[in-house]
């Protein structure tokens, strides 16, 4: 019933009515990208930083200490694990295979657990680690920015963190992500 109020003298500012559509389109683009992101995965600020220092008793030989210096010399992995951690159990066979491939030494950070349980675990399922340091009160793990065991760090020959993997490593992860990283780190060290 109401006629469009066309006024020859005044041009209605029709572009104003497009604003909601434009804003919404921007939002849709954001959502579309957002769907591809994992909201729980956190980037670590420690990438390209020297590995945080520690000095911990070894799980298998509590009289001996290991420190971040063991990570220097060649590329290595540092894996944070515990026997109460369900995903660590899932990951363990993959770590065994990686250790068997002798591509890279794996160091462990034994996190908030009891020594006897850790020893039993390694005895039952095998020991992929060159050595594991015991972080029984979890203080060192905080320095490493741990938020969900297991977590695995790729460290270069200078002891600098180059990559962080959160959650259990699958064999695919190893072959497609971690191994290429380590190879390129080794190649880099050759130059």
């Amino acid at each position, binding site marked *: 019933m109401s006629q469009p109020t066309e006024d020859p003298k005044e041009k209605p500012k029709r572009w104003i*009515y497009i604003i909601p559509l434009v804003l919404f389109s921007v939002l849709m683009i954001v959502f579309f990208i957002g*769907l591809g992101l994992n909201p729980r995965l956190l980037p670590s600020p420690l990438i390209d930083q020297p590995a945080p220092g520690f000095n911990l008793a070894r799980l298998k030989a509590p009289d001996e200490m290991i420190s971040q210096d063991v990570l220097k010399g060649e590329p290595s992995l540092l894996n944070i694990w515990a026997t109460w951690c369900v995903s660590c159990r899932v990951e363990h066979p993959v770590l065994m295979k990686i250790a068997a491939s002798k591509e890279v030494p794996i160091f462990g950070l034994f996190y908030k657990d009891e020594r006897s349980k850790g020893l039993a675990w390694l005895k039952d399922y095998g020991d992929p680690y060159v050595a594991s340091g015991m972080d029984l009160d979890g203080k060192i793990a905080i320095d490493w920015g741990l938020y969900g065991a297991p977590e695995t760090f790729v460290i270069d020959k200078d002891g600098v963190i180059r990559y962080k993997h959160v959650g259990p490593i699958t064999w695919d992860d190893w072959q497609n992500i971690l191994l290429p990283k380590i190879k390129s780190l080794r190649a880099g060290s050759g130059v």
Partner: protein
Amino acid sequence: MIPELGHFALILALSVALVQAIIPGMGLLRRRPDWMAVARPAALLQFVLVLAGYGILTYSFIVHDFSVLYVANTSNSELPLIYRISGVWGAHEGSLLLWVMILSTWTAIIAVYSKRYPADISAGVISVLGFISIGFLLFSLFTSNPFTRVFPAPFDGADLNPLLQDPVMAIHPPMLYMGYVGFAVPFAFAITALVQGRLDAAWARWVRPWALIAWVCLTAGIGLGSWWAYYELGWGGWWFWDPVENASFMPWLTGTALIHSLAVTEKRNALRNWTILLAIISFSLSLLGTFLVRSGVLTSVHAFASDPTRGVFILVFLGLVVGISFSLFAIRAWQLRTKTAFSLISREMALLTNSVFLLVTMLTVLLGTLYPLILEAMGGGKISVGPPYFSRVFIPLMIPVVILVGVGSFIKWREQKLSELVDNLRRPAIFALVFASALLIVLPGKASFTAWFGLLLAFWVINSAIAQLVHRLRNTQNTMRGLKRIPRGWYGMITAHIGLVFTVIGIALSSVYSQEQDLHMAPGDERTLGEYRFEFVGVERKDGPNYSADVGTIDIYKKDKRMLTLHPEKRIYNVRKNMMTEAAINSNLLRDLYVSLGEQRDPDTNAWSVRLYYKPFILWIWLGGLVMVLGGLIAVTDKRYRIEVKQEKLKLNSNHVPAN
């Protein structure tokens, strides 16, 4: 066999929804009354079919049919009957079906009352609702079928999330969805107007009750959710600015703006485009909320475990619905403009200002909720935006809104002299200052600016309401008759505003004067909060129907007289092994005493960790919500939405002939 019937009913509902959407819609465009006439029976048939599907799912819950995957995942043979009924919406698939169910219910109600509107309008509205129904039925059938079977059927179900085994949590989702889906009705009216390129002068009057009902349901839903979080989560908080809470709060903000803008459109035929835009935005935000909760783009306490196909589906649906609506708005809205002049100091302007402020607040909440996502999508890394941010920006934005509440309903339509307005408002303002300051002195605890300012705002609105009442009655000799002659709409408005003020009081005072203690208590230990002394008596083991519990006993003394005993519980549910705290609360209008039980800390001394809270005036937060709901209900029952509908129809019939 029976679950398959449910599935079949939904498939039939989908095909009926297609008919309901397309044929009346085409009829509207082609001006074919016979096609438009399909709207009503189609809407009713779709409702019956969805009801059948929904009823069958409920039946599967009641009879423990664990061969249905959804039932097996969300129910258990120990689950009490009431939670088997509410368990239907206890997880993604069923709650989606509830969405569809409520949508088809609203549509059916429209269809029943469709004679109240011109045939073309009701055909358009039912068609638009049909399109939305198609989207959700497709979503349900293709990504989230609640009737999927599992073979072999498990012996028992995985149980309903214990957090949801609570009477309030049983009614919170339907309330909330009734609000969300309720905004589909004003949305459908808005889209119909845009499609037609004309807006009937009675349009706002048709839409207003629907917007009000949706707003009432949403208010109730949010209020219940917040109350539930307060007593169930066990740490005394009631609003966490969680993405999902924000998703329900945003349509509330624009819905509030909508009902105010509708008032201007109804009374003065002004701000039509603005009203239409708010109607579109309110429903779009309801859809956005569904997307945020069910797609997994944001982490949230409430989020359903999600899978990517669902996210993509609902994003595409959101894009289509909102994209088409805003495109229509861009093409057509300028044609609906009216030129209605009003002065800077006029009720139109006050209501417009308030709705603009509410929209700004909504945009702020939206930006805060999505900023981490936007930043990450642009490769800017991860950040969090949490309660400290929101409370810092939200409160300053709300202050002008509350101030305007006191002004807006006092101003005259069209134009008012500033001096007149100042005259009218001077007294309420002065009294507000006096009351707030006086009350601050009376209140226990140290004087605080926040508390004073909250009280000031509250009294400002209350005084202004009283002044208005006096003003309205100034020319009547008989007060009772004068009161009766004031329309319900006005009482509803004032009631809702008073409700808002109650909430403001609750927030301001409880945030300032609350005291809390986290401590270990062994039997005999005591602690004093405010004027209350809490004495820990001990903990006993007790078993419930499907859980076992540690039940604590805490005696509370006031001036060395024992006044009550609280029994906070810590439950372990048998099936899921979830631990749950059931806080014990003693509420009255002046304060809540709140106790929740943690872990046993020392078996020798039987010491437990305990949280004690003394929260003055916190009940007012939800009381305010209740009063707002009441106000909305009073306004809906205003005569002009009922009786005049008939007169309206007569007028319309005579008016419509020449128009076509």
